[in-house]
């Protein structure tokens, strides 16, 4: 089977404006969660979130910013970094370049802003860029245009599994022979009144407003929901021969991936993690590795009461009790459609550097937690293979298995 490797990484997150600063903060165990000081947030039940450290306006030119939704802006920034990191040049055959880039919610902030303009000033004042800014394939399209991708530009939309799925689909795209190079990832930027109120009404979010840095606490007995974050991650995937022919640096191999669906509930996770477990099993089978060689799982672990423990059951059943888990959402918050990409980057860096970033705020582990977690401090472990999981509303499950190059 065609081997797919990772040759470029890019990100902008609540921990840093690029991969190096984000990774440094992850290993150091720093929280990116803080109070929302904006006026619109003051009447909401949840007034905390993990906001970007580097504003897109510090990176992109003004006119470019005007025509892109915030999710598109950060998709572009992360992809530009990944492209540069991969050392790809303009003479790449763009008919062999694909993009698979998703967003969980899309341009919701643009939709709301333009609706205000419609109500207050009338239809003629609505921006002609409204539709390309709010369409859920916007981030993929913007990335595709930036690099002139002509092999196909695709936009999976599977809530919080979106960018783990994007990496899986992009891997499949290269394996199917439809491209040599693919930019895969996800972006989300919906920290605004309506999305926050909607998640809060579901009782899905932490209301620990007075202690933002301690609010996201996967597997802790006092966890009370996820913390919304914004950010984007991008990976350059490449057919191994193509990468080697141009002398590219290889971070990791995408040895296997799995995508399944629960058929269970629109928002509740299957408490036994059957679907998530099958995704892990599929990734291991496709990779052809011994499951005892999978030493680490960067878990979906959003800090919700049911989801965190369900995943532990799935990991234990499908991989075993030798795994070291971590939940980096304890630091980044939940990046929704950007989560799988940023967490896959963390998984790759863990494999590459031999360091598993910590799960912070794990002070009183859930009594049912019977797996080893890199709690509160980074863990040095020499890894052969590691998995990133992503699960989304709608019952979407994805698992991506990385090995050393």
């Amino acid at each position: 089977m065609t081997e797919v490797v990772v040759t470029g990484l890019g990100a902008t997150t609540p921990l840093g404006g690029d991969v190096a600063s984000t990774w440094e903060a992850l290993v150091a165990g720093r929280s990116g969660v803080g109070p929302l000081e904006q006026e619109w947030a003051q009447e909401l039940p949840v007034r905390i979130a993990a906001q970007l450290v580097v504003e897109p306006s510090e990176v992109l030119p003004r006119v470019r910013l005007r025509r892109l939704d915030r999710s598109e802006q950060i998709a572009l920034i992360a992809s530009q970094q990944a492209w540069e990191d991969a050392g790809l040049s303009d003479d790449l055959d763009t008919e062999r370049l694909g993009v698979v880039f998703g967003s969980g919610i899309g341009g919701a902030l643009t939709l709301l802003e333009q609706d205000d303009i419609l109500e207050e000033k009338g239809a003629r004042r609505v921006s002609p860029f409204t539709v390309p800014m709010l369409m859920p394939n916007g981030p993929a399209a913007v990335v595709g245009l930036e690099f002139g991708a002509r092999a196909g530009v695709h936009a999976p939309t599977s809530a919080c599994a979106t960018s783990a799925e994007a990496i899986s689909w992009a891997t499949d795209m290269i394996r199917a022979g439809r491209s040599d190079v693919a930019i895969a990832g996800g972006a989300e930027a919906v920290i605004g009144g309506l999305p926050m109120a909607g998640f809060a009404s579901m009782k899905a979010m932490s209301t620990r407003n007075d202690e933002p840095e301690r609010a996201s606490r996967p597997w802790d007995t006092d966890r009370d929901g996820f913390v919304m974050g914004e950010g984007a991650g991008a990976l350059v995937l490449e057919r191994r021969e193509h990468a080697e022919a141009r002398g590219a640096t290889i971070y990791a191999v995408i040895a296997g991936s799995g995508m399944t669906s629960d058929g269970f509930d629109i928002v509740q996770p299957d408490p036994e993690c059957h679907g998530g477990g099958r995704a892990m099993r599929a990734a291991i089978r496709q990779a052809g590795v011994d499951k005892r060689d999978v030493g680490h799982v960067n878990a979906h672990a959003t800090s919700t009461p049911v989801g965190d423990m369900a995943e532990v059951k799935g990991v234990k059943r499908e991989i075993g009790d030798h795994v070291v888990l971590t939940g980096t959402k304890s630091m980044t918050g939940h990046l929704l459609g950007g989560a799988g990409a940023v967490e896959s980057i963390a998984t790759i860096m863990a494999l590459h550097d031999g360091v598993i970033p910590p799960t912070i705020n794990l002070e009183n582990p859930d009594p049912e937690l019977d797996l080893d977690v890199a709690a509160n401090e980074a863990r040095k472990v020499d890894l052969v293979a590691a998995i990133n999981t992503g699960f989304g509303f709608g019952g979407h499950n994805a698992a991506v298995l990385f090995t050393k190059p």
Partner: protein
Amino acid sequence: MALSRDEIREGLSDILEEVAGVNPDDVADDKSFTDDLDVDSLAMVEVVVAAEEKFGVKIPDDEVANLKNVGDAVSYIEKG
């Protein structure tokens, strides 16, 4: 008091810079919006709406097609 052509051109130049990133030094009566200043059809919609607001004029959609260059727009706004 009616604005002079120079004042209208200057105001238009500010709009073009704001919404489409056009360098004010490039703005002259004989410059085509699409061919010289790279203002595409969507950006032109924004320019027209901003010009209507700034100069208090109405520029109907079927008139926009006739505004090929900066001079055409200045003349239209001058007539009010």
